[in-house]
């Protein structure tokens, strides 16, 4: 374990926007689902923020609440059964949860847009892609059909779909997976929103196409200076693109860190477990590490730290006290900017 690394050289993610505040700030967000079997607590007090031009990667396994948080931000959570008992979602300082539905709808697509995981099912099968792209302009900007189509072609060229002019009338099933995802990206980009939420944008794609799509997304983000929330369970996807990472487990953020810091020195046993379970060439022939056990049942989240039944470092305190997201500091006491860990033993984890 090499833990002695210089951290000062790393670009620390700035939370502040040009206007002094972050673009989007999620404060103590709780989401629960009322089911027949009880209340499933999908999100339990999530805090994060994104500024313009910044990429936040939200990392976690299935059921960790990363997608539900995104849906809550977009306001596309099914309510009921979903419920937001507590929390604030501030977009440019305004709480979207208390806004009128109509006001909120105007933000969707125009200011915040979303890219979905499976582009085939997220595009309407009976409408041509040109129509669906053009719809953005017709609905939000009142353009004519002809102008909207021209804009759609422009957008398709923007996301580098070859022969855009010929393909604008094609239907989603006529495109390959990578091309469809580009169309999804084009739709999200259409109105040049301030913030894009990408929910596992490359999970349904094969590895070579993944890289192309991520590069395209990163490039467009830089160009438009948008905020980007990248939701993924793939540590590899995140490394090149993100500025900072929030690791989620059982509806909580267990660790936050600037991207490279996290890979070098994880401050939470869960993050460490995730990183150790990446196959590595220099570990050829050795057994691949896996985090034991399963993610917790959201109906019965373990008391104390939710990770305690699976944690190799678990002590008695872990089953009784919920660890708060504490600032992480260097051994000599200098605080590491942008870093936090929700572990009672973060010191041992990062330094030990």
């Amino acid at each position: 374990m090499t833990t002695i690394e210089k951290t000062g050289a790393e670009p620390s993610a700035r939370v502040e926007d040009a206007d002094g505040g972050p673009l989007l700030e999620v404060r103590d967000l709780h989401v629960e689902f009322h089911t027949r079997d009880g209340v499933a607590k999908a999100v339990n007090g999530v805090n994060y923020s994104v500024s313009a031009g910044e990429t936040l990667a939200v990392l976690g396994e299935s059921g960790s609440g990363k997608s539900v948080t995104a849906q809550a931000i977009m306001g596309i959570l099914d309510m009921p059964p979903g419920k937001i008992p507590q929390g604030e979602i501030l977009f440019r300082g305004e709480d979207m949860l208390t806004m009128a539905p109509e006001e909120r709808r105007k933000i969707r697509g125009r200011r915040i847009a979303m890219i979905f995981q499976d582009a085939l099912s997220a595009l309407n099968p009976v409408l041509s892609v040109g129509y669906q792209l053009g719809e953005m302009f017709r609905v939000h900007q009142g353009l004519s059909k002809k102008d909207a189509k021209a804009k759609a072609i422009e957008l398709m060229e923007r996301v580098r779909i070859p022969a855009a002019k010929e393909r604008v009338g094609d239907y989603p099933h006529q495109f390959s997976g990578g091309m469809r995802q580009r169309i999804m990206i084009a739709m999200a980009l259409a109105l040049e929103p301030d913030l894009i939420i990408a929910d596992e944008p490359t999970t349904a794609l094969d590895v070579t196409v993944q890289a192309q799509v991520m590069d395209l997304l990163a490039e467009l983000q830089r160009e438009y200076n948008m905020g980007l929330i990248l939701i993924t369970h793939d540590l590899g996807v995140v490394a090149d693109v993100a500025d900072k990472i929030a690791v989620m487990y059982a509806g909580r953020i267990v660790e936050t860190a600037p991207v490279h810091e996290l890979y070098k020195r994880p401050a939470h046993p869960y993050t460490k477990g995730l990183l150790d379970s990446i196959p590595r060439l220099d570990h050829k022939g050795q057994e691949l590490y896996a985090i034991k056990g399963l993610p917790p049942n959201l109906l019965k989240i373990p008391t104390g730290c939710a990770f305690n039944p699976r944690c190799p470092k678990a002590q008695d305190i872990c089953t009784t006290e919920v660890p708060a997201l504490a600032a992480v500091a260097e051994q000599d006491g200098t605080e590491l900017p942008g870093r936090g860990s929700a572990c009672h033993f973060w010191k041992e984890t990062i330094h030990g």
Partner: protein
Amino acid sequence: MLNPTQAPEAGPVSAAAEAPLPGGSEITKARSLGQDAWRELRSNPIFWVSAVLLVLFLLMAAVPSLFTSTDPGHADLRNHYLGKPEWGHFFQPDWFGYNGQGQSVYARTIYGARASVIIGFCVTLGVTLVGGVIGMFAGYFGGLLDTLLSRLTDIFFGIPLLLGGMVLLQAFTHRTIWTVVLALATFGWMPLARVMRGAVITQKQADFVTAARALGAGTTRILLRHILPNTLAPVIVVATIALGGFVSTEATLSYLGIGLQSTVSWGVDISDAQNVLRDAPHVLLVPASFLSLTVLSFILLGDAVRDAFDPKLR
């Protein structure tokens, strides 16, 4: 002349699917669900048989004078039941013999198609609109509205179409084609509402609806532009099959004497002929065969359309 009949079953879906295509400028061939279905239909012999029959019946309804120059009302008592069918006299007044009033059975059968076809189409249109709207609201908005509308559907389901039609038609002293249409549509919309509700609920959960919502589409747009075109296929299938049922129900009502009055109609003719079934069976059998064939061809067509739209049956 094949187009008029193809339009009702192939038209709406392919039109809906193609509508967004800005016309004419396409170079590549885009294949939508409707186009695939058409491709499938084209190679289905059952479709062609039913389509040809339906074209014939539609022609009869639209321009009966193409088939006969005899006035269906013209009675000549010299021909009273005597006129047995002359099977060799094609398209002649005595081809299928004469009825009790001495009227040409052939002419009456040709002219009788109009009432059946008009009622069949208008009732189907009516139930598709009423049932479609009710099903769509119930399916999309859910909750209390869904409960109310679904229970209303259940209540109407409890009333047999024929019984409901009879009771309602009793209230009218003067009954025309339109009163029959009203009565049948009032008690016939439930299957369409259920199919529409189911289809809307399925589509509502589709990712593309969430995506449209996430990109700022409003309720109306989501319902009409994103959900509706995707629900048309099952609705068209159910409507086509139901059409045959409405035609036969109209005939049943007329047979029972509470359907059409003083209109040339198969049901009325069948009703009049029942007393002389043993002496002059042709008077009953000819309009009855035409009726059966019409109903059959609609049901076959509905079947073919369903097979074409359901990829699992290909």
